[in-house]
């Protein structure tokens, strides 16, 4: 401890008041090193999105300490890139203007970086397309490029591929890993897909609901690129799955609504 990029100590978050109080997050302790790709997995209602929104600065009401590069998080900003489940592009802007957003494309530096990112997320030829003309996967790649243009210290992804079909999703996972290798951007990726969690991560963090707590951390030391259809991948997957099922059972006995 002391030199991790992101540090979370004794993080607690609850909704509601006195009698109907719900512990969304309880005693979260987490340190993420620079350049890591960590996935957070858990059943719905375990607080994984809430945790991500707190890190992003979108949710400010909590107790405990959350620091990014040694500084307490004061609110949302470009140092914390955020990818939502829906692409949330500006429908009135073309792909390149969406990536630039509040920055001007007539600025040479911005222009060059936007072109590089379009190349990186494989959208060459779609610079002038409007979001309505893009598929879900393409739109999500634009959203990723938009976040990366700001050189975030950390990229937070909240089930970004949840709405995509299985093939697109597998392709997007490859694209994300390529970006990660090329840019060395630290990423936290929230998902409820075990395959996805194991395929992407250095570390899989399993959350259990009510109260949202870290129930296990599974390091994944497989080299990249990974093959899903290998025994070693499958054994790791099973390891995560068995941990996950324990939390599921626990959740059911506790009567959490899933």
């Amino acid at each position, binding site marked *: 401890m002391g030199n991790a990029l992101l540090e979370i100590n004794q993080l607690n978050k609850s909704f509601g008041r006195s009698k109907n109080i719900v512990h969304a997050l309880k005693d979260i302790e987490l340190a993420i090193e620079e350049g890591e790709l960590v996935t957070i997995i858990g059943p719905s209602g375990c607080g994984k999105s809430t945790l991500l929104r707190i890190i*992003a600065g*979108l949710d400010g009401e909590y107790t405990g300490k959350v620091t990014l590069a040694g500084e307490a998080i004061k*609110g*949302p*900003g*470009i140092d*914390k*890139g*955020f990818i*939502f489940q*829906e692409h*949330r592009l*500006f*429908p*009135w*802007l073309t792909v390149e203007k969406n990536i630039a*957003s*509040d920055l001007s494309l007539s600025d040479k530096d911005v222009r060059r970086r936007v072109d590089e990112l379009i190349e990186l997320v494989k959208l060459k030829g779609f610079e002038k397309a*409007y*979001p*309505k003309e893009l598929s879900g996967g393409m739109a999500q790649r634009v959203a990723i490029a*938009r*976040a990366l243009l*700001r050189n975030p210290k950390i990229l937070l992804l909240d089930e970004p591929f949840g709405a995509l079909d299985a093939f697109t999703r597998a392709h997007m996972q490859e694209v994300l890993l390529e970006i990660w290798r090329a840019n060395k951007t630290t990423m936290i990726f929230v998902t409820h897909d075990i395959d996805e969690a194991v395929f992407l991560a250095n570390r899989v963090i399993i959350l259990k609901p009510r109260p949202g707590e870290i129930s296990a951390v599974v390091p994944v030391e497989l080299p990249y690129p990974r093959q899903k259809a290998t025994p070693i991948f499958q054994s790791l997957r099973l390891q995560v799955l068995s941990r996950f099922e324990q939390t599921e059972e626990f959740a059911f006995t506790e009567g959490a609504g899933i």
Partner: protein
Amino acid sequence: MSNSVKTAAAHTVSQELGGSINTGEGEKTRRGKQSGDRVPLPKVLSRASRLPSAFLKNAAVGAAVPVILIAAWQLAVTAGLVSEQFVSSPLAIAGALAELLASGQLLHHLLVSIERAALGFLIGGAAGFLFGILTGLFRKAQYLLDPSFQVLRLVPNLAIVPLIILWFGFGELSKIAIIVSGAFFPLYINVFTGIRNVDQKLFEVAQVLGFSPIKRLLRLILPAALPHIFNGVRISLAVSWIGLVVAELVGSQAGIGFLINEAKQNSDTAIIFVGIIIFAIVGKLIDSAMKVIEARWLNWRDSFKG
């Protein structure tokens, strides 16, 4: 839809014709013309109206009903069914129009009218726009101002005309004031509504991307509200045009309304019709121009186009 409307219109026309003149011939010519229009109709509707030729075809379809009605009208007047003193024939109106055009009078009065309407629209519309932004952005401004605006909005525009005249007299100022009072509200309400309809999720995006307040207004709120703003502009323009008529009929020395008033005193029915037609045509042209601009600016929208 336009197909059935057209058929219905053609029906009434042919009924009228059947009641008055030679049934067989009238029906035949109508039917021939109608079926000629009807065949390409589905094609025209399915094609995007960006192509000029498609646009012209759409315009031709839209013109069919007026053309038929005017023909029937001319026939009714020449047949002596209506008195020329109350309803001028289209030919007489065209004659009066040609005369006014040739003398340059029409252009003069039209320019005066357009200037008035434009000035009133710009002042009233700009005020509506600014107050709409103010109340749309800030809840405190909304609580402070919106109830008053809503009450004033419900006062019929024409009811305050006597008051405006009492305050500003019969001069140019009162005319502009009448138009301003009408142009204000449509833009005010639509800008307010447009801002309040901006997707909350996109505000989060603006937060995450670190938009400054100015950028948030210019790059998020206004573009997102643009469909509503356009709507407001179009209604404000239409109301300005109506306000213009009222203002000019109340008393003026120039303008299309003055032309109509003068013709009324001289019992020159044809010129009254010319004035009405000019009001209609210019109003329609302004609205169509707005539609073209709107289609261009809002081409990013992914909505049902019919």
